[in-house]
């Protein structure tokens, strides 16, 4: 094989290089210069992100263990942008961590390796690569969840995450073994030919599905979510809720639409049930949350439920809408988390009623938050509306009107609790509101990008058309 093929793995290789380089830097940069490593990391990753947008070719490597194509490439870029925004938003937090606790580099290393895992996961061509990617993307996050070693909640979050994810991966491995048993191969392309709708296959699929549902945090595999989000540092919470969820959705979609296509008559019902459960449970729990992180955790569960409406379509339309929605969701949710991050960094306050009267002291932050929430709730003209509307269209295209109806009922419920936050920020007047503060440049940049995304992505239709034609690949 000639090495030009390795260009197919451009993302992975560059990211690996960056990670290693950071490890080296960790060794050589003197103690007093440590904070500058943040700039370095962000710079490098920024470059990496930009390079990612260079056109790439489709193809397979390692006899089909690794494969890439336009959509996967696009999705890796989406993840990159998400992570970049995330880095920008957590830069200030990291710097002070470095100053105070002399730690920080490992944050990047772990984060990047987790991202690397996701790369491999979404471009995996067989179950082995998939499994490795899955684990590689999960374990570092567990370490990061327990990042604040001084904080009991953080460690608790770590424990809960690592144990639950171990169980999940165990279960899904068991499922994979069954699929292997029935199809005789772990290569997706072979399985597509071999797979038949036997009980064992279905069982295997269900077990395997549980493993991914855990990462997407679908009901009833979602319980870890809220606790881990609450305990983990905000950056990690948003990483979990945006990046890893997105990646998991993407690979699940690929597998369902390609490998498990023959079982569609089964999994579409499963997804129907799970979607309804997820939307309702997520929303009902979100209603009564006080802690912003928990609140966003449940809201992100509900969002996952909406995503399933796209999956259930099982068509090119479904693929396109899901990818489009995830893209928008990345920006909306990162915006929300960014504001939470900024405020908790300045004041350490994380509760909704701490936000009362926020608009009168920090109008810009409140506006960003409001946009983000409206986008999550699906209010035009911000992007979220288009994402949701198209997901519903996808579901309706298969005649799932009842499901769509239940979904819109949930939209209304979700609107209620999103408005609770808006109410706190805009309607209420507080006697000791969060005082005015100015964000550092990185944070502002991070929020700015998200806001632009929220405002533009929906109205700018060519983007959707582009995704739509890329989505042809899986059907």
């Amino acid at each position, binding site marked *: 094989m000639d090495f030009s093929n390795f260009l197919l793995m451009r993302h992975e290789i560059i990211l690996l290089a960056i990670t290693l380089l950071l490890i080296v830097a960790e060794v050589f940069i003197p103690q007093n210069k440590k904070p500058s490593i943040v700039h370095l990391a962000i710079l490098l990753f920024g470059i990496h992100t930009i390079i990612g947008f260079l056109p790439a070719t489709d193809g397979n490597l390692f006899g089909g263990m690794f494969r890439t194509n336009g959509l996967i490439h696009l999705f890796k870029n989406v993840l990159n942008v998400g992570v970049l925004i995330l880095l920008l938003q957590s830069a200030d937090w990291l710097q002070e961590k470095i100053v105070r606790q002399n730690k920080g580099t490992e944050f990047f290393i772990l984060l990047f390796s987790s991202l690397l895992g996701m790369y491999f996961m979404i471009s995996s061509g067989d179950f082995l690569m998939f499994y490795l990617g899955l684990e590689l993307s999960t374990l570092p996050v567990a370490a990061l969840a327990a990042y604040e070693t001084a904080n009991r909640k953080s460690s608790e979050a770590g424990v809960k995450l690592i144990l*639950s994810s171990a169980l*999940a991966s165990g279960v899904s491995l068991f499922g994979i073994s069954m699929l292997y048993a029935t199809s005789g191969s772990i290569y997706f392309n072979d399985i597509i030919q071999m797979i038949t709708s036997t009980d064992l296959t279905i069982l295997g699929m269900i*077990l395997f599905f549980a493993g991914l549902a855990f990462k997407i945090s679908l009901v009833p595999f979602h*319980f870890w979510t809220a606790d881990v989000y609450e305990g983990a540092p905000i950056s990690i919470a948003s990483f979990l809720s945006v990046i890893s969820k997105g990646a998991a959705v993407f690979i699940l979609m690929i597998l369902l639409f390609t490998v498990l296509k023959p079982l569609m008559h*089964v999994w579409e*019902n*499963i997804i129907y049930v799970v979607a309804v459960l997820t939307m309702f449970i997520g929303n009902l*729990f979100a*209603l009564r949350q006080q802690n912003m992180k928990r609140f966003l955790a449940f809201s992100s569960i509900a969002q996952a439920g909406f995503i399933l409406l796209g999956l259930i379509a099982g068509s090119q339309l479904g693929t396109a809408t899901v990818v489009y929605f995830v893209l928008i969701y990345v920006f909306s949710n990162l915006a929300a988390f960014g504001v939470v991050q900024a405020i908790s960094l300045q004041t350490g306050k994380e509760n909704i009623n701490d936000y009362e009267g926020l608009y009168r002291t920090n109008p810009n932050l409140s506006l960003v938050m409001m946009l983000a929430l409206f986008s999550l709730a699906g209010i035009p003209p911000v992007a979220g509306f288009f994402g949701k509307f198209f997901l519903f269209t996808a579901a309706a295209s298969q005649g799932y009107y009842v499901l769509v109806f239940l979904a819109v009922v949930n939209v209304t419920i979700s609107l209620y609790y999103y408005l609770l936050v808006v109410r706190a920020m805009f309607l209420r007047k507080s006697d000791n509101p969060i005082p005015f503060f100015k964000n550092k440049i990185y944070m502002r940049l991070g929020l700015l990008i998200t806001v632009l995304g929220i405002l533009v992505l929906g109205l700018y239709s060519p983007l959707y058309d582009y995704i739509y034609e890329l989505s042809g690949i899986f059907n």
Partner: protein
Amino acid sequence: MNFVNIILIPLVPLAVFLLLGIFNQKIKPSVSGYIGVAGLLVSTLLSLNTAYQYFFVNGKADGVYQTFVEKTVWMNFTDTLAIDMGVQIDPISVMMLLVVSIVSLMVHIYSRGYMKGDDGYTKFFAFLSLFSFSMYGLVLATNLFQIYIFWELVGVSSYLLIGYYYTKPSAVSAAKKAFIVTRFADLGFLIGILIMGFYTGTYDFETLNNPEGSAILNWASTSFMGLSVLTWALILIFIGGAGKSAMFPLHIWLPDAMEGPTPVSALIHAATMVVAGVFLVARLFPMFYFVEEGFALNIVAYVGAFSSLFAAIIAITQTDIKRVLAFSTMSQLGYMMLALGVSGYEGHEGLGYMASMFHLFTHAMFKALLFLCAGSVIHAVHSNYLKDMGGLRKYMPITNITFLIAALAIAGVPPFAGFFSKDEILVAAFEHNKLIYFVGVFVAGLTAFYMFRIYFGIFWGKDTKYEHKPHESPISMTFPLLFLALLSIIGGFIPFSEFVTADKAGFEAHLNYPLAAIAVGVGLIGIALAWIFYKKENDLANKMVNFFGPVYQWTSDKFYFDEIYLFITKKILFDRVSAPIAKFDKKYVDGTMVGIGNKTVLTSEKIKGMQSGKVQDYAFAFIAGVVIIALVFIYLWTD
């Protein structure tokens, strides 16, 4: 005909109204008074001119008065139905023009004296002009919808004028009552119009009233509950008329309407607006007569007869002179209605119709006169009540004379106007319906009695001591009195049957001496009784009161109709309907909506235990989920 002049008749008062209404604050009272009078003067001259042109120059063609119509579309409903605005010139409309013009002009002049120094002076004249405009529009209307439009407008101007002293709660409630009661009647009117329009496909009087027209010929085509739909329509329309003309049982607003300034009572609640109902029936007379052999017309007759009797009885016991006059008005309107009710169509058959119009004319004159006199009396003694009056003839001779003339006129004493018209009515009644005839005669007697009761009560009787000496009213007030008195004297000699008849062809009407004699006799008896009771101060009256006892009580309390209505509206509609609905809305309709929300929040509170924080529970849920899904989708839900 020259329609420009005719169209100007309503438009001039309208212009005056807008002028006075918009520059209310800027114009100073004296000027506004002159503007008002001038405006009406113009209209009056134009009306007189029109009347002359119509009746004597170019109205007649081969013995029959023509109907001239000039109209334009105001709004289109369907391809066939539309609201037109226009003027219709035929005997009754011209006659009404005269009535309205003369009385209104007199009232305008009178008001300059009566309302002097009132801080709403300009507003008052603005409203008067508005009313005149609406009334002209009403009488000139060419179709049902136009008449309905102006019908509502006169209603609202009456509302504004009754509530003129708006700081007086009684005035406010009286105005409200008048509007709502008539509005309720108009509901019937409107539904009637809807039915009429739907089944006949037109609103035009010309088309409807044409005896050979499809509307009348096909009256039997559709029926509803045993009656022709057109009969229903006419009955409903008559309800509207009854509301305006204070027919029983929709009369309750009229007495209270006396809260308004006296000139207003004279103009609106005696001479013009209240006759609108009569005018409406006359307007649609051919329909009333031909449709279902005049079924609706009989209803008109009986309602009219009963109202006139009812009102006359009540009038006897009232002590507020304006209320006496109000009930007398109601009774006279009943007279007109019954006259229409007993009328035929062709030639002399149509005597009742002609008589009714005739009485409308004369009654307008002497009843307006009576009110204006009463006004000048009230002006002098600052009270409406008989008890505060007496022996005023020394102080205000002109008022005394004019009032006497008017009283004689209404009592039907020859040669005053009332005698002729009333006699015609009785003749018509006698020829068609004996029962109604006797009622009429009896009422005539009662009328004479109560009218002279107050006459003697005011100008003779006891010599009340006045803290400041009453004096005759200024010329601006006495002139109208004299003028109207003149008309009340000579009005009767107009050969009405030449001009205003049902089939528009004049006929020779001659006195029926025996019947006339009876009527006059009854009238004189009434007067005589009044003389005995009230000429000199004596206690005969009280004796009678004690003799009748409860009956007297009922009558003086107007048979408790106000209380009944009050009960229906307040107790039933407000407390038994509105209040429950309002409560229902808050409690149940709103409750459900809010309840859904609360339930959701409650549920989320209930299920919070699921998130127990125990990693092992999570694991259990995880595995349970997998197992259940596996079982369900492998064994149960396999399609």
